[in-house]
């Protein structure tokens, strides 16, 4: 990020990468003026500390206000555990659904031509632009107690699922789409002309190219889903042990004046999100390396 920034500023003659999903330094010469790097690193360090690291450190300190046993009790209280279980369970399902359907949507948007394609393409970003509470109201009026469709998902886990699928829709689509646009179709045609079936071509040629993008999109949608609050607040029902997600549990603990419980569950949620993103990053970069090695 900083490298790109300063390369652009200091050496404008260098071509800028057109594909945002490509690693910024790949293939570009590493030489840059000595001034740029420490300044950039210093700024990034300062900014990240103020915005991310300090608040997270403060949160972690709060969660240990009553010592390690207080933290452990707070996280393992049955209702807290249940909320974490519901959150992770529903989020995993949503992430998997996104992995499959998101890739499919990206495929259709890139490879197929149909009327209204640009409209559909713009529609994908709507869940990003919409305040999540609006999503909740929309879903409640459609699937709530006065549902015009006669479908009642209010205060059920399928209700949570639909809400989370709605807000996480863009992640996989938007990470797979550019890769698919860049992908070399001649390789697929070559595979087909050599007698590979459609499925084999997909499995051996297309999937390996898309895998890093699918994995990172899935990871992002999982991370977003476990932290989601606004879209589930109305349709979720907030029933402890059944549909109460971790963010709602945290909110409730704040309201009943138990900040330590809230902070402890927040830290647990944070750890899950961080671990997930870290593992998926490893997996994505490994499959990318494999892809590059075979190319």
């Amino acid at each position: 990020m900083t490298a790109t920034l300063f390369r652009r500023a200091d050496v404008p003659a260098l071509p800028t990468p057109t594909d945002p999903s490509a690693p910024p330094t790949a293939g570009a010469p590493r030489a840059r003026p000595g001034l740029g790097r420490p300044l950039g690193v210093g700024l990034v360090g300062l900014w990240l500390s103020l915005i991310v690291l300090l608040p997270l450190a403060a949160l972690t300190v709060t969660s240990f206000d009553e010592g390690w046993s207080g933290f452990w009790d707070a996280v393992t209280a049955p209702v807290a555990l249940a909320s974490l279980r519901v959150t992770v369970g529903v989020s995993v399902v949503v992430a998997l659904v996104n992995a499959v359907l998101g890739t499919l949507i990206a495929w259709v948007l890139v490879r197929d031509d149909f009327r209204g394609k640009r409209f559909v393409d713009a529609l994908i970003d709507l869940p990003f632009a919409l305040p999540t509470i609006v999503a909740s109201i929309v879903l409640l009026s459609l699937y709530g107690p006065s549902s015009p469709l006669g479908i009642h998902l209010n205060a059920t886990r399928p209700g949570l699922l639909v809400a989370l699928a709605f807000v996480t829709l863009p992640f996989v689509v938007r990470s797979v789409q550019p890769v698919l646009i860049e992908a070399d179709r001649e390789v697929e045609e070559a595979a087909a002309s050599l007698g590979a079936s459609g499925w084999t071509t997909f499995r051996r040629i297309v999937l390996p190219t898309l895998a890093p993008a699918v994995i990172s999109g899935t990871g992002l949608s999982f991370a977003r889903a476990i932290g989601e609050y606004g879209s589930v607040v109305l349709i979720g029902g907030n029933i402890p042990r059944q549909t109460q997600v971790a963010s709602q549990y945290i909110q409730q603990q704040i309201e009943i004046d138990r900040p330590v419980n809230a902070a402890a569950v927040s830290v647990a949620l944070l750890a899950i999100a961080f671990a997930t993103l870290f593992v998926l990053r490893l997996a994505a970069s490994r499959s990318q390396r494999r892809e590059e090695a075979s190319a």
Partner: protein
Amino acid sequence: MRRRNAVAVTGALSAGVLALSACAGGSSDTVGAAADAGGAAKTTLQLYAYSAPKVGYDKVIPAFTRTAAGKGVQFEQSYGPSGDQSRKVEAGAPADFVNFSVEPDITRLVDAGLVAKDWNANQYKGIPFGSVVTIVVRKGNPKGIRDWDDLLEPGVEVVTPNPFSSGSAKWNLLAPYSAKSNGGKDQAAGLAYIDKLVTGHVKVQPKSAREATETFLQGTGDVLLSYENEALFAERSGDPVQHVTPPTTFKIENPVAVLSKSKNLAKAKAFDDYLFTPEAQKLFAEAGFRPVDQTVATEFATDFPAPQKLWTIDDLGGWKTVDGTLFKKETGSIALIYDKATQ
């Protein structure tokens, strides 16, 4: 050499950033001061209240601003769970006037030095209106709920807010508790009822009376425990519910107080006084709250039928005793029942 230079530049830059943020702080202070100076012409009162009385203030505030004392007064209103609101004000929320569901939420501010010790010195003890605890059921009362015992029938799900955040929840639990314990004389019987109710029939934990009503109206549960005014509000808005006032129930008294460090103390006090005038009392009564002014109360007697037996907080020894023995976090008997059932 270059490297050292770079470090110096980084240092200078971060110093610059710090200076900049310091500037930002300074300028925002000035803005605040300017707003204060402008406030002389127009007063803004910050009202922090529990979740239910919004319907009352929606009538009373416009009427107050039409009086001589209320001319030019604007209100910024914040409604939420009583306990939560009280803790926010304690933590520094800029309130001028508070209205909580239960007295301990005001006592918290007295202890913090924010409300004068004699806040309840007027003839109504600082309580401009009240209500009674009622049982709200679905239209037609399909489960045939009449009295407290009916709530313990198998398959009846009860919606009541969480007593650690909501004042309404405390009143809701005190009603069957006093009915079963004969006004606190037989504690064990009262607690046995609460234990059965909370452990076996309460599934959701809304944060406030208002959220509990919303949850119930969205289809959760068979029974909602609530203020009579909240029940009347739902019925008058055309929601398919009705309320049953059990023969023995509890008198709800919702106190108000002026913050002693309020920047608009005179106006806040004028508003406080206005709430007890017959005019304001009538407006509260029309909004479903039981007035404390005797003449107005007689006038609205048909709207607010008297239950056979109405226990009061004084019968149980006052809020200090009740909060200490029943609701105190980690030691109160009802708090323990709740913790056992919800953790």
